[in-house]
Each structure stands twice: as structure tokens, then as C-alpha cells.
């Protein structure tokens, strides 16, 4: 029982970076902008966060540095695709390539360094509950932040006027422009929010989750987060569940490896990636279903015209 509780706890921890990055990308995409640079932003944020944590010893400062790094790169990306009308696919790829090169370069001096471990306090009182305490209430604050964020974004998108404007822009930037909404500025804001959250997720990986800096340590999580937005058909709560599902797959394969199952570790490590493919196949089988839920202008360049 306790083992199961630990697996649940580990699942939540592993799903958290996917959830935070995924929610950020979801906001991004709801405004009609696709950012394939997620992986790169997370990598740069991971190295920025780790370096800051190493220098200051403060976890909060480290996460903030990651958020800032993600926001800056996202702002550059946003400027390119929103104002210079560059192709969103190619530019996103460029950000990913840049991020992996830049983080490897900056992080060279940090390889092998360790951060001081901080005690995780968990939720007072509830942490001492049997089973549930271990499973749910002894987590790092960022894990709870991810949950709160999901609720907050869901409320924002579907219950506020600003959220309606954001969705409207993702649906038809031309109409929104005709009504006088500053389409490009709002899109940029959404992109920066996406980058900030990808940054928090990246810093969480290197500062809290591992906590180590290793080249390429994001290991495809940025791409998986992108897949999750489709999987969730752009709904925040579904995205959170999807993130935990993937956290679970990751943990399960580690668990199986540790318990000495007679399968080569490489094949076990393939599981999260194969799971992503399987999930994409299952969710995309019905193109109508995707089209019904996808922000109609996603990935398309909008030029406010004359």
C-alpha cells in the first residue's frame, strides 16, 4: 500500500513539469500561436534556473530565473512570428535548436555540480494522514502550483471576458482585428505566458526534480507537452490529467526497471515516447473531433492587412 502511495507521489512529481509547460502552451495555442520551441525554452530555463540556484542557493530565485529565461526567449519567438510573420513551424524549430545548443554551451561549467537539497515541507497536518499523506501531501509546492494553475487557467478561459477575447483571437484574428482588438499584442502576451510557464517547468526539472544539470536533460518533455495540448483538446483539466498519465508511465517504467523485470532498460525508456505516439494516434483518429476543438487559426500567420 505504501509502495503504491509512493508511486502516486512520484507520478504527481513527474507529471508536474509536463502539466505546467502544457498549460502554458495551451494558453499560447488558444490565442492561435503554435510554439514548437517549447523544448528549447525549457532547456534554457533549466540551465538558467540551475545556475541561479547554484549561485544563490535560493529555490525561488532559481524558479524565477527559469521563468524569466523562458519569457525572454518566448518574447523573441513572438516578435518573429507575430510581427515579422515568419513561419511558426520553422521558427519554433529554430528556437528548439538554439535552445539545445545554447543550454549545452552555457551549462558546460555546471555539469556535475549539485544543489543543496531542501527539505520538502508538504501540507501541514494532512501530510501525516496514512497513505494519502505520502501519496498527495508531501509534495513540493510547485506540484500544487500546477494544480492551482490549471484551475486558474480554466476559469480564465471560460469564465472571464479576457479569456473570451483570447479564444476569439485564436478563432478568428481577422474578426478580432476588425472589432479593434490589438490582436498582435494579445498574441504576444499569450506567447510570453506560455514561455514563462515552460520556463518554470524547465527550472523545476533541473532545480527540484533531478536536481542536476545534464545536457539535453529535458529529454523531449517539451515535445510531449505539445502533444498533450492536442490530447487534451485544449482543455486545461484534461491536460492536467494527461500530464499525470505520462508521469505515471515514466514512473511505472522506472519502477519496473528497478524491480528487475527482464527487459532491456532501453526498451523501458522508450515507453513515454511510444506512449506519446499511441496517444496521438488515438486522439487524432477522428479528424472531425480535433477540428471541432482546435483553435481555428492555430499555426497560421495573421497579417493585419490594409
Amino acid at each position: 500500500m505504501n509502495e503504491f502511495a509512493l508511486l502516486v507521489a512520484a507520478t504527481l512529481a513527474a507529471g508536474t513539469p509536463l502539466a505546467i509547460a502544457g498549460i502554458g502552451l495551451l494558453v499560447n495555442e488558444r490565442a492561435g500561436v503554435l510554439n514548437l520551441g517549447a523544448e528549447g525554452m525549457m532547456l534554457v530555463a533549466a540551465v538558467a534556473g540551475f545556475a541561479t540556484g547554484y549561485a544563490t542557493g535560493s529555490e525561488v530565485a532559481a524558479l524565477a530565473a527559469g521563468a524569466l529565461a523562458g519569457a525572454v526567449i518566448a518574447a523573441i519567438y513572438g516578435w518573429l512570428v507575430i510581427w515579422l510573420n515568419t513561419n511558426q513551424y520553422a521558427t519554433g524549430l529554430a528556437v528548439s535548436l538554439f535552445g539545445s545548443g545554447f543550454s549545452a554551451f552555457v551549462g558546460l561549467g555546471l555539469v556535475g555540480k549539485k544543489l543543496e537539497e531542501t527539505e520538502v515541507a508538504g501540507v501541514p497536518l494532512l501530510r501525516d494522514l496514512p497513505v494519502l499523506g505520502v501519496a498527495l501531501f508531501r509534495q513540493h509546492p510547485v506540484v500544487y502550483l500546477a494544480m492551482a494553475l490549471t484551475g486558474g487557467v480554466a476559469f480564465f478561459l471560460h469564465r472571464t471576458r479576457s479569456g473570451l477575447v483570447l479564444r476569439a483571437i485564436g478563432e478568428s484574428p481577422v474578426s478580432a482585428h476588425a472589432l479593434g482588438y490589438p490582436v498582435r499584442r494579445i498574441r504576444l502576451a499569450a506567447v510570453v505566458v506560455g514561455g514563462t510557464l515552460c520556463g518554470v517547468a524547465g527550472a523545476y526539472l533541473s532545480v527540484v526534480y533531478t536536481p542536476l544539470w545534464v545536457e539535453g536533460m529535458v529529454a523531449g518533455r517539451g515535445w510531449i507537452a505539445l502533444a498533450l495540448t492536442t490530447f487534451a483538446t485544449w482543455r486545461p483539466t484534461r491536460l492536467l490529467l494527461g500530464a499525470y498519465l505520462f508521469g505515471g508511465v515514466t514512473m511505472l517504467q522506472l519502477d519496473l526497471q528497478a524491480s528487475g523485470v527482464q527487459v532491456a532498460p532501453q526498451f523501458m525508456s522508450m515507453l513515454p515516447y511510444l506512449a506519446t505516439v499511441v496517444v496521438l494516434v488515438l486522439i487524432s483518429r477522428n479528424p472531425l473531433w480535433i477540428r471541432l476543438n482546435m483553435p481555428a487559426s492555430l499555426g497560421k500567420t495573421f497579417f493585419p492587412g490594409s
Partner: protein
Amino acid sequence: MTVPRLQLEQITKRFASVVANDAVALTVLPGEIHSILGENGAGKSTLVKIIYGALRPDAGRILWNGQPVQIRSPQEARALGIAMVFQHFSLFETLTVAENVWLGMSGKIPLRQVVAGIRSKAAEYGLELEPEREVHTLSVGERQRVEIVRALLADPRLLILDEPTSVLTPQAVEKLFVTLRQLAATGCSILYISHKLDEIRALCHQCTVLRGGRVTGTCDPTLESNASLSRLMIGAEPPRLVHRQATPGQVALRVRDLTLEKLDRFGTDLHGVSLELREGEVVGVAGVSGNGQQQLLAAISGEDPRAEEGAVELFGQPIGRLGVAARRKLGLHFIPEERLGRGAVPTLSLAHNMLLTRDESLRALGWIDRRALKYQTAKIIERFKVKSGGPAAVARSLSGGNLQKYIVGREIDAVPRVLVVAQPTWGVDVGAAAQIRAELLALRDAGTALLVVSEELEELFEMTDRLHVMARGRLSPSIGTSAATVELIGEWMSGLWPTGPEDGPGVSIGEFP
């Protein structure tokens, strides 16, 4: 003397190489219905965008109630009391009517209040509208009502309507005019953008005519004739089309009881559509767009090969399941409504665009004979007077009218046995339109069977020998064009034709009671 509601002085706007507005002057009085008349490309849209704050003029002055103003954004325009109904609606398909209206309003009104506001405005002007419906479930006419109610809720002092009747049946146009007159009686000025002479004469008090970006005249349209307005608009009498009696031959294309479910959520289901098209005749399909024309065209062209084998026949051969290329080989050619992106690839040259529908310059293994291709393209450019940089020019460098001439030329040059055309002259200037219509009629006289789908009733009356009307995914029986009247076709456009397959004569199908 009354202070004009809106006065434009010397408004000038240049784009890269063209002067869209050249020292335009305009005066609109309170409560006046003022029309801006001009053909495509005359600069009407640019002028309207300047008034609505979407564009800034390079020079000139705007006076609002006698005071000079700067209108820097649509919000500022709305704050002054200017509202606009767009030609291509500025609506969001997946949102509800109320949300759409809400997004078009400034200020912090709760959504609930907006719903109540929609109900009362709709009742006041007799415009039925359900605030909770999602926009994609609405017909085109209903969507326009959303736009109008949105504009009315702002209590405008000036309402701009850009080509509002292109999506309406003649009866619905009458209803719209009633609404507009009622609104003008309250003192609201109306700026009515159109190129339809009859409507302007029926509705407007004043008219400013634009040609090539300049004002060519202002007049009281009720005192003018179509011919005199037309002279102001295009500088000449509209070209007359010589339409000889048709001599129909054997049946070329037959659609029999075609029923098809829509492919996407914004489409229309087809119900039991039947038609017959003979060699040497032009058959027209009238109707407000969005009533299934696109689906019918796709089923005939082969872009949608889901029809039953025998539901579409070409010279007696069932082709319902054949693909586009196979049908084209049998002599069925199609000219789609969208030129850029469907009829031609924007980024490819005119020569390469030939290959979309023509294979004469292909050699073994698909090798392209570039000289043959260039020659073939040049021939079409010359014969159809396409203004372009030659066969190597990319499609998107052409103006809409010239690209349409190229595409029409490409298909006519193939000497098809059946030619299906959608909106042959949509957005094309008068000269090019006349040329295209004449070429299509010449093709008919040479024995080709033509099916023309158009929203422009005038065009259909001018070109066709028989007419069908499409409404709600159904097709009316045909009527000889010489026997048809605008009133009759208008009635049919609401779905009220005598032998409707399921609805008895005179039974309404809801939207237009």
C-alpha cells in the same frame, strides 16, 4: 442649416503603387441614408476603413458633427457613435450570438445584460435572434442579423453597411430596408456601400460615386436612372451581352436524387438534388450562398466523391465515385469560386499552374516539356487579355480580375464538354466581367454544356437559359429564364417553390415566414 453628421475633406490614402483614395470629399447629414457607389476596386472599402478607424488617411480631414476628429481605432470610432456591419462578417463561429455581440461592445457590461439587450433590440426592429445559439449553426442571413443587432446595441449615430445585400434573398433585402428606414427615422445616419444600382435608387437619399479612387459625382439617386448612375460609376454604359437562343442537344450532365451528408460542421446537407444539363445550354443555380451550393459543386466536380455511383452521370456514364482527374479526362471541367489557393496556387507561376488541370505539355514519366508549357500559357494570356508578367509570373502577383480571366481561359481553352462555373465574375471589374460572360456564352454556342452557380441574380438573368434555385440543401425545379422574374426567384430562394419534394406548396421552412 443642419450640421452634417460626418464630413470628409480631401481624404487621400496611398498603398505601395496605387492611390486608393484621391482627395475624396463626402458629406452625410443626420438621418440621411447615403450611398457610396462604385465598382470593385474603386476605393469604397478603403474609405470605409478610414471612417471606421481601421486605416489612417495619408492626408485630409474628418469632421464629426462639425468638429475635426482623429479616428485612430475602431474603438475610437465606436466611442464617437460609429458602428459597422462588415461584408465578410466579423463573427466568431464557435461562440454564441451573445458572446459575439459582447465582444463587439466596449465597456464593462455583464453578459446577462447583453442577452437582455439583444432580446429587446431584436424585438424593436423585428429581427428574430436567439442569443444562446452558436454562430456556426446560423444561416448567412441570421449572421447578418447578429452583426446588425450588435451595431444597433451601441445606439449608433452613424451606421456603415458594406455590401449588405449580397447574402440576402430579394425579400430579405426588402425587410432590411424597412429596418434601415426605421433606424434613419430616429436620426441615425446610414452609410450604404454597394454597387447595385436598383437598391441604391430604392433606398438612399444621397449618393456619392467613386471611380478609381476619386469622386466622380454626387446626386440624388431617386432622380437618376440606372444608366446615368452607371455612367458615373464606370464612365460608360454597361456593356450589353448578345444572348442568342439556345439550341440544347443531348443530356450531358445528370444529377439524380443526390443526397449527401455534409463533410464538416460548417457545411450543408444535400437532400434529393436533381438536375439535367444539355449540350449547348447554360443552366444557372441561384440562391444565397451557404445553402449547399459548395457541396453540390464538390459532388459534381469530384472533389467529394462520396455520392452514389449513379447519382451523377456524364453522358450516361455514372461518375459519382470517380475522382477529379478521372472526371476531367471525360471532359468535365470546373472553375471554383476561390481563385487564389484553389483555382491557382499563389506561389507557383502561371505556367506551372496550367498543370493543375491541363496535361498537354507532359511527356513520358511526367516529364514537363517546358517550351510547350510556356507556349500554351502564353497563348491563353494573349487570347484572354490577362494582364501579367507573362507565363513565369506567380499567380498571386495578378489582380483578382486578371487571375479569373486566366483560370477561365485555362478551362475554356481545354474545350470541355461540360463546364461548371461558380461565381464567374465575383469581385471582377465590369469590363472583365463582360468579357468572361461573353467567352462563356461563346463556349455554349460551340456546344458545351454550362452550369453556372452565382449569387448575382442579374448575372444569371443575363447569361442563363434555364434557372434552378438552391435553398437549404434542396434544388428547385428549373424554369426558363425568360419566364422567370426576380420576385419569383426571390420567393424560391426562401425555399418556397411549387413542387418542393417534402414541403407542400406555400409551406414555410422557417427562416422567412
